[in-house]
C-alpha cells in the first residue's frame, strides 16, 4: 500500500486526468479494486490519447478558421484516427453538468456530477412561441479603409484615441497638414499653462477700451499677429471675441465705446488670421458669427458703422480667399446668409448695407448673383427715396462698380430703349435712374456686352 505521501506525489504526477477518475470508471465497469499504479498508468495513457485526439481536432478547428473547438472537430478527428465518433453530441446543445447533493451516509464517495436531463413539458412546448427560421447567410459590404484611412462608418469599430500621438507619428509625416492635425489632437488633453493664463488675462485687458492706452493695444495686437505658441490659447481667444461681439451688440450698440470695442475685436480676428503659426481653420465656425454679426447688424454706432462694415467685409474676404480651397462649402454658406439678409423683406438698411459690402468681399460673382441675378438691387432700391444719395445707395453703386468699371466718357441710356426697360426691370427704378447715365456700364452690369 502506498503511503499518503506517495499518494500525493502520484496525484500531482498524473496530470490533468486523475487516477481517481480511472478508478471511478473502473468501478462503473464492475472492477472494484483497481491497483493504484495501474490506475495512474491508465490515467497517463488516457491523457496521452486525449491529447492525440485534441491535436487532431485542432487541425480541423484551424482549417475551419475558428478559434474555438467544437464537437464536430472532435468527431472529425476521431474519424480520421479511425475511431468511431461519439454520436449525439452537437455544439448546439451543450450538456450541462450538475452537482448532486452530497450523500450523507457515504461521505467517502466525494462529489458526484451528472448530466442534466431536463424534462420537457409537451404542452408548454406547444404553447411556446414559434421560432423564426434564420434568414440564411447574407453579406454586406463596407469600406474598411479608403486610401489607407478608416472611415468612421457604423460598420467599422469606433476609433480608439491613441496615447502617444505626438511622438512617432510626426516621424512619418512629410506633409504639413497631418502635423497640424496632431497638434490639434494634442490640444484636447493639454492643460493651459500658468504663463498662458497670465498672458491671456493681460492680453484681454490691454485690448479692450477701458484700457485706453493705444500703444498697449497695438502691442497686444502685434503680439497676436506674430507670436508663435498661442495655439493653445486660440479657442479661448475665439470665444472671448465671440462673447465680446455679442455683448457689444446686445446693448443696442449705440455708444461710442461699443463701436470701438467692435473695431478692436475685428482687429483681433484679423490678427489671428495674420498669425502664420496659428491653425485657425477648426475655429472658423466660431469666428464667422461675430464677423457676420458686425457686418449685418442693423444698428451700429453711427460714427463707426461704415468703417466697421468695411472692416468686417474685408475680414470675410480674407477668410474666404484663405480657406475656400480647403473648406469648399464655406463660400456657399456665407453667400446664403448674405443673400438672406439682402433679399428678405423688412430688413434694416444697415443690414442691407452690410450684406452688399459682404457680397463685395465674397467676390465679383457673388455681387452679380446677389444684386443682379437675385434682384438685390431692386429690393434695396425700393427702400430708397428717388434722388437720395449716400449710404446704402452708394454702397450698391460701389458694389456694381466692382463688376465693371464705369466708362470714361459716359453715354446716357436711351429712354424707352430695350436696355432701359431691362434695366428698370432688373435693377428697379432707383438704380435704373442712377445707372442710366452710363449706357456701356449698365449694359455690362446686365451682362449684355
Amino acid at each position: 500500500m502506498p503511503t499518503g505521501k506517495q499518494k500525493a506525489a502520484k496525484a500531482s504526477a498524473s496530470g490533468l486526468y486523475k487516477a481517481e477518475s480511472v478508478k471511478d470508471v473502473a468501478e462503473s465497469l464492475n472492477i472494484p479494486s483497481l491497483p493504484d499504479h495501474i490506475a495512474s498508468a491508465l490515467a497517463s495513457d488516457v491523457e496521452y490519447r486525449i491529447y492525440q485526439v485534441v491535436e487532431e481536432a485542432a487541425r480541423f478547428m484551424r482549417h475551419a478558421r475558428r478559434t474555438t473547438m467544437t464537437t464536430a472537430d472532435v468527431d472529425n478527428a476521431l474519424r480520421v484516427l479511425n475511431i468511431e465518433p461519439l454520436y449525439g453530441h452537437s455544439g448546439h446543445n451543450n450538456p450541462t453538468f450538475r452537482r448532486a447533493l452530497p450523500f450523507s451516509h457515504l461521505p467517502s464517495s466525494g462529489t458526484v456530477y451528472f448530466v442534466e436531463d431536463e424534462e420537457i413539458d409537451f404542452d408548454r412546448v406547444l404553447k411556446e412561441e414559434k421560432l423564426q427560421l434564420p434568414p440564411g447567410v447574407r453579406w454586406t459590404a463596407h469600406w474598411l479603409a479608403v486610401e489607407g484611412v478608416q472611415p468612421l462608418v457604423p460598420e467599422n469599430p469606433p476609433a480608439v484615441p491613441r496615447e502617444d500621438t505626438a511622438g512617432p507619428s510626426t516621424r512619418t509625416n512629410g506633409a504639413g497638414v497631418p502635423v497640424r492635425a496632431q497638434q490639434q489632437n494634442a490640444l484636447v488633453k493639454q492643460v493651459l499653462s500658468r504663463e498662458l493664463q497670465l498672458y491671456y488675462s493681460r492680453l484681454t485687458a490691454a485690448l479692450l477700451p477701458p484700457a485706453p492706452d493705444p500703444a498697449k493695444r497695438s502691442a497686444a495686437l502685434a503680439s497676436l499677429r506674430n507670436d508663435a505658441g498661442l495655439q493653445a490659447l486660440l479657442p479661448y481667444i475665439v470665444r472671448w471675441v465671440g462673447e465680446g461681439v455679442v455683448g457689444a451688440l446686445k446693448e443696442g450698440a449705440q455708444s461710442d465705446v461699443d463701436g470701438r470695442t467692435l473695431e478692436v475685436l475685428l482687429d483681433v480676428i484679423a490678427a489671428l488670421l495674420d498669425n502664420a503659426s496659428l491653425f485657425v481653420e477648426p475655429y472658423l465656425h466660431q469666428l464667422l458669427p461675430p464677423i457676420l454679426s458686425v457686418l449685418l447688424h442693423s444698428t451700429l454706432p453711427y460714427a463707426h458703422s461704415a468703417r466697421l462694415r468695411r472692416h468686417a467685409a474685408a475680414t470675410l474676404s480674407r477668410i474666404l480667399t484663405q480657406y475656400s480651397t480647403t473648406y469648399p462649402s464655406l463660400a456657399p454658406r456665407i453667400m446664403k446668409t448674405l443673400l438672406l439678409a439682402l433679399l428678405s423683406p423688412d430688413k434694416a438698411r444697415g443690414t442691407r448695407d452690410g450684406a452688399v459690402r459682404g457680397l463685395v468681399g465674397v467676390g465679383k460673382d457673388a455681387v452679380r448673383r446677389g444684386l443682379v441675378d437675385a434682384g438685390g438691387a431692386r429690393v434695396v432700391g425700393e427702400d430708397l427715396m428717388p434722388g437720395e444719395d449716400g449710404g446704402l445707395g452708394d454702397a450698391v453703386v460701389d458694389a456694381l462698380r466692382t463688376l465693371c468699371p464705369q466708362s470714361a466718357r459716359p453715354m446716357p441710356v436711351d429712354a424707352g430703349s430695350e436696355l432701359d426697360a431691362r434695366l428698370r426691370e432688373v435693377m428697379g427704378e432707383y438704380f435704373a435712374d442712377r445707372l442710366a447715365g452710363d449706357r456701356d456700364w449698365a449694359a455690362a452690369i446686365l451682362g449684355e456686352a
Partner: protein
Amino acid sequence: MSVATPSASSPEATSPTVPAATASNEPQGAATMDQFVMQYLQSRGHESAAKAVAEAIGAGELPSSTLSVEELLKKIAVFADKSGTSSENTYKEAMKIVQELAASGTTHNIKSVIMNIGPEGAEDVLALNPDDKREGFRELEAWVEGSLDMYRPEFRPILYPVFCHFYLDLVQLGFKDAAQGFFDAFSPSIEAHHSQSFAWLTSIRLPHHVQSDLQAQRLRNEKYIIQISRSGFDLLVGWLTEGVGGEAAGLGDGFSGEQGKRGRAAVMRVINNHLKFIAAPSNVSSSDVSWEESTGLLTSLIPQASKTAPLTNPNAFNARGGELKLGPLPMSEDLRAETEKALREQALGDPSIQLDPNVLRPNLPPNVIAPEVVDLPPHPSTFKTMDIQREVEKVRDARKGIRLDPSSSNIAARLPSICAYTLHDVPEGSPCCAFSPDTSLMAAGFEESYIRLWSLKGEPLNGMKSDFQVKPIRDSSSLGKIRERNGSPTRKLIGHSGPVYSVCFDPMNGSAAPPRYLLSSSVDATARLWSLDTMTNVVAYRGHQNPVWDTDWSPMGIYFATASRDRTARLWSTDRVNSLRIYAGHLSDVDCVKFHPNSLYLATGSSDRTARLWDVQKGSSVRVFIGHQGVVSTLAFSPDGQYLATAGEDLAINLWDLGSGKRIKKMTGHVASIYSLAFSAESSLLVSGGADWTVRCWDVKGAGGLLEKSHTNGMVNGTGSKNHVGERQEKNETGDLLATFPTKRTPIIKAHFTPRNLCLVAGPYQAPGGK
C-alpha cells in the same frame, strides 16, 4: 563541425551512452520491427511465442539478449528510483549479469553498451538518478542565462533539446513523478521561445508513449542541429569539461562537486548523442530570429538526396536546387500578335489610350530567367477568343489600376482601399471564401457541407433546367432556352459530405468575363469541380485518403493542385480523375498550396512548420523554407514571382526570396492566427487578415525588425493599433507594419486584390455572446 571530445572518455565510447535509452532506441535496421514484435509478445507473457518468432527470424540469441539487457537496466533504474540511494550490492550483481551477457553477446550495440558500463559504468547507472538531470539542467540554464550577451542567443537554442531529452529520458525510465517535477520546474523558461512545441511533450507520460510518439521518435533518432560560432562552441566545451567558461564575471565558478559533475555528464550525454553543432557564420547573434532557420531536427525536413551525406543546412539544399525560372508567364507568339492587334484597334477607337508597344513584353529584372512556353505543363496549342480578351483586359487593368507604393510620400498612394465583405448569420462558421478574378462572384464554403455562391453585382444566377431534350439544342440561343429563369443572386451548391475547406474560381477568363468553374475541397477527401454554367457538380476528384485542406488553380487554368492531411500535395488536370503528380516529402499535413504566377512551381505549407517549393512537372522539391515556429497556415506569391510570403501559427509572416530560398524578413504584429495573405499588383504591399479581427498592411520592401517602442502605425486614421481585447499592444510589431484596420468582430478569412489593385477582404461576423 562535430562535437569534439569534451569529456575524459573518448567520443566513440561516449556516443551511445545512456544505456537504457540508447539501447532501446538505436534503430537496428530491419530488426527493429521484429524487436517490437518480440517486445510485445514478451510483455504479454508469451515467452514461447517470442522465442518462436526469434528463431523464425534466424537471430535467436541476438535480439533476446539485447532485450534482456534493456529490461535489466530498466529494472535497475526503477529500483534506483524506489530506493533513492542506490544499494551497491544490487548494482554489482547487475553488472555481473551484464558482463556475462556481454561475453555471450556479439552485436556491436551490446558491446558498446558494455564498454560504457565497464569501469565508469557504475557511475553511469548512478547517473540515472533523476536529480542529476534536474541539477544538470539548472546549471546549464544558469550558465546560458549568465553568459555574455553576445553568446546568449547562440546558447539559448541548446536548452530546448536538452530539456526535451531529459524529460523523455525520465519518462522512458519510468520516473513519472520526477519527469513531472522536472517539467514543472523548467518549462516556464523554455516556453517563452518554444510555446508551440510544448503541448506534445506534456502529454507523454509513459515509456511506450515515447516509443509511439512521432515527434519523440524524431527527436530521439535525428540530430538536433544548432548553429554556433567557433568561439561559442569552445566556451560550451570548456564549460562541459571544466565547469567554467563563458559566464560573465562574478557569477561564480560554474558548478562543482560530485552532483554537479554528474549533472554535467548528463548534459554532455545528450549533447553528444542528439545534438549536432554546425559552424555558424561569424556572428549569429546579429538578429534574434536567425536561429529559427538553422535550428531543429532539420535532417528530415530537408529533402535528402539518396547518396550524399545528409544535408543539415536548408541553404545548402536550396543552393543545390538550381536556378529557378521566376519570370512571368510566357505567352505564345500567336496569342501575343492577336492581342497586340486587338489593343491597337482599341487604341484607334479611343485616342486617349496611349498604347505602349512593349506592353506585352515586360522587362525582366536582371538575374531573372524567363520561362519559355515549352517549360509550361502542356496546354492546348490553340487559343480562344476569350484568351485574347483576357490578355487585353489584363493590359487595361494594368493601365487603370490603382497604384500603390508604400515608399511614396503621398499618403493616398501608400495604402490600399479595402472593401470588407461581411457574412452575417453564419451558423457554424465559414472556413473559406473566394472572389472571382472579375469580382462578379463570391463563393463561401461552409461547415454544413455546402458552398454558397453570390453574385456581387446582384445579377440572378441561373442554372440549367434539369428536364430538357438534347435534340433541339443546336446553338447558343437554343441553349439559352433551357436556362432557368428568375434565379436569385445567390445559389447553394450541394455535393460535399463534410465541411468545405477551400473554394477557388478558375482564372481562365481573367477579369474579362465571369469564371466558368469553381473548385472546392472538403473533409470528405474529395475535390470537386462545379460548373457555373449549369450550377452543378461536374467532377469529384478522389485520390486523397484524408481531408483535403486546400486547392489552387494553376494561373492558366486546366491544372490544379490539392493539399491534404495525408501529407501530400497532388497535381490534377480537370479532365482526368486521377492525379498527375504527387508531391510527397512533408512530414505532416500539407495545409496550404499555391501556384507560382508562372505556373512552373508550386508552394506548399505544412504542419511540419516548413514550406516547400516544388517543380510542378518534375514533382521534386526545389526549395525548402525553414523558420516558422508553428504550422504554416497560409501563403502567397508576389505577382512579380520573386517572393513568397508565408504565415504561421507562430503569428509571424515570413517573407522569402525564392531565388536563394533565404528568409528576407519576419513580420510580426498579429495577435491571433493569420488566415489569408495577398500581395498588391506591384508586389510592394502585403495585406494579411486573421482571427484577431484585423486587416494589416505590410511594407514588403521596407526594413523589418522589432521596434523599440510600442509601434503606432503612423497613419492619421486614428484607429490606432489596438487589438480587440483592448490590451495594450505587445511590443511585437515590426517596423514594416504600415497600418492596422480593425473590424468590429469579423475574423478575416480571405484577403484578395482585384486586378485593379483594390483590396477585398471577407469574413463571417461573430455575434457577441456565444455562437
